[in-house]
């Protein structure tokens, strides 16, 4: 029997962090102004999880990576043009809302259902990867609930490192309070690993990987099930952008001595 991992990375799209975001209230709940037009990126934490998954799959023979993404189909297609070049994976698409205002449990249910229907996925060998948070909802609960719905009890949050053992187990480092790592040993898959940033830089684009991935991405998008708005029992009363503008005093013509003295006084004060 093979010892490789079946790594399922859950990751969706978020608005490009450099975009200005303005909330709007609609009858069915809040959203973002011009949301459909905003350029998107793969959620940064999920991206780290994907790079770590690809790295782990390369180290452990007979491993395979799936990327499960929930978002509006046209935006997923656009996103995959960039993401597909980063790492080899098989794509699992779910057509639905990627809004930060969607309910994390509803989102988790949709993802769990999609993962259950992945052909060839051995859930006894499954490592469920994703971000420890997101740049949209920022709740840090979705992946954990996907794991719970799939019956996976061994879960790790804010992971920066995984080190597989020869016997199928692995050591994990999770970020905890006080700039510390909690180091744990897990007997092996199945497990949930919600990644912080990990330790790997963003891989360069690889057009060959991109072309190989795209062969599966378009059919996956074509058969993506639709799951809707995923609001659950949430009732929003208001959403607003707090004023954050400060009156900046620009000090242009002061010498180094003057600036250093002013700063020293400010720091001591």
């Amino acid at each position, binding site marked *: 029997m093979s010892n490789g991992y079946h790594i399922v990375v859950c990751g969706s799209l978020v608005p490009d962090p450099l975009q200005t975001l303005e909330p709007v209230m609609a009858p069915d709940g809040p959203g973002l102004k011009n949301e459909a037009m905003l350029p998107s990126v793969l959620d940064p934490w999920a991206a780290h999880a994907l790079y770590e998954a690809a790295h782990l799959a390369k180290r452990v023979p007979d491993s395979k990576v799936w990327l499960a993404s929930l978002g509006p189909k046209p935006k997923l297609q656009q996103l995959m043009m960039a993401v597909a070049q980063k790492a080899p994976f098989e794509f699992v698409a779910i057509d639905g809302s990627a809004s930060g205002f969607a309910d994390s449990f509803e989102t988790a249910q949709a993802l769990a259902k999609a993962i259950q229907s992945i052909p060839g996925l051995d859930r006894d060998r499954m490592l469920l990867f994703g971000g420890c948070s997101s740049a949209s909802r920022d709740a840090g609960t979705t992946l954990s609930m996907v794991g719970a719905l799939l019956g996976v009890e061994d879960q790790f949050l804010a992971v920066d490192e995984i080190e597989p053992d020869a016997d199928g187990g692995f050591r994990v480092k999770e970020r905890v309070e006080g700039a510390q790592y909690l180091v744990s040993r897990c007997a092996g898959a199945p497990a949930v690993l919600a990644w912080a940033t990990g330790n790997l*830089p963003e891989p360069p684009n690889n057009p060959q990987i991109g072309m190989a991935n795209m062969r599966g991405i378009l059919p996956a998008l074509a058969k993506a099930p639709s799951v809707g708005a995923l609001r659950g029992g949430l*009732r929003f009363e208001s959403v607003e952008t707090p004023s954050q503008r400060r009156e900046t005093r620009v000090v242009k013509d002061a010498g180094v001595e003057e600036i250093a003295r002013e700063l020293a006084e400010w720091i001591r004060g």
Partner: protein
Amino acid sequence: MAKTLILIPLEADGTVGKAARDLLASALAADPGADVGVFGKGAKQAADVVPASASRVLVAGGDGLASPTAANDARACEALVRASGSQLVLAPQHSRTARCLPLVAVRTGGRIDTRVAGISLGAETKVRRWYYRQRMQAAFTREERPWFLLLESGALPAAEASAGFSGAVEEVSWEPCSRTQALGTEAAIAGEQTIRPDADLLLVAGAGWTKKQSDGQTHVPEAEELIRAFLRATGASLGSSKSLVDQKGEGAVISFLTHMNQVGQTGSSPRHPKGLATCCHGEEPHVVGWRFIGERRAINLDPNCGWAQGKADVLYVADAFAVLRRLNELLG
């Protein structure tokens, strides 16, 4: 008001952390009839930190909770929630609760919301939390119960309560499992550049420290020494922009910076009273990473830097190398 359980995790040394103690006091002031649940090894002994005014205290302890694992913590918390029968579960935002309570929410048919910045308890519980990395805040409620809420410090009005619960403590049994074993903790980064959440000042180092300077050369070793000397002199916490941390894969780097130092979109949003950003021109820590910094100053070479204008209180247009060199002399 829905029946409430205040769920308190123990730290690795068996104590109750400050945020959890504050939550105990403020939540019991808001809802004096709430149950209190404590989980962790030695929970029964730790129950004496529960305010004397509490009406019911449940504990889940045992060797299986000596170190935090999702599986055992979730089993213990599930037992506490079921024993309490509460519809509203309040817990501090803590690595231990964040790891295990989503599992408990699924198993009990409930829902969970985290990083709650404000809550009003009453006939209808309403919460406020940030979305899109602290860019907007929403107020909402939800129908599903039990409702698990992880509260940030200050989400409830502060209250004082004297510890010393002297009533009967109810021990709740649960079944441990052993697929994961916590081996211990280790420092993510060591030495003088360690993150210090309790520091008065945050120094944010931007990618400019590794770029070519006016002489056409990079001065990375000098940058490292200046930053180190500044940290030694001030005891500041050290943050970094994402672009500087990401250079790990590219060559010239500040050797002691890791992703643990990163502030901003994928980093932390620290809460120091003062922050000084250096060489962060064109980078975004001012927007997200600085949301909760009190007084903010920045040193960079671009007076029109869109990331500092309107975000910093003072922007010094100067060479950060020269300013920090002199500043270290003054502070040293």
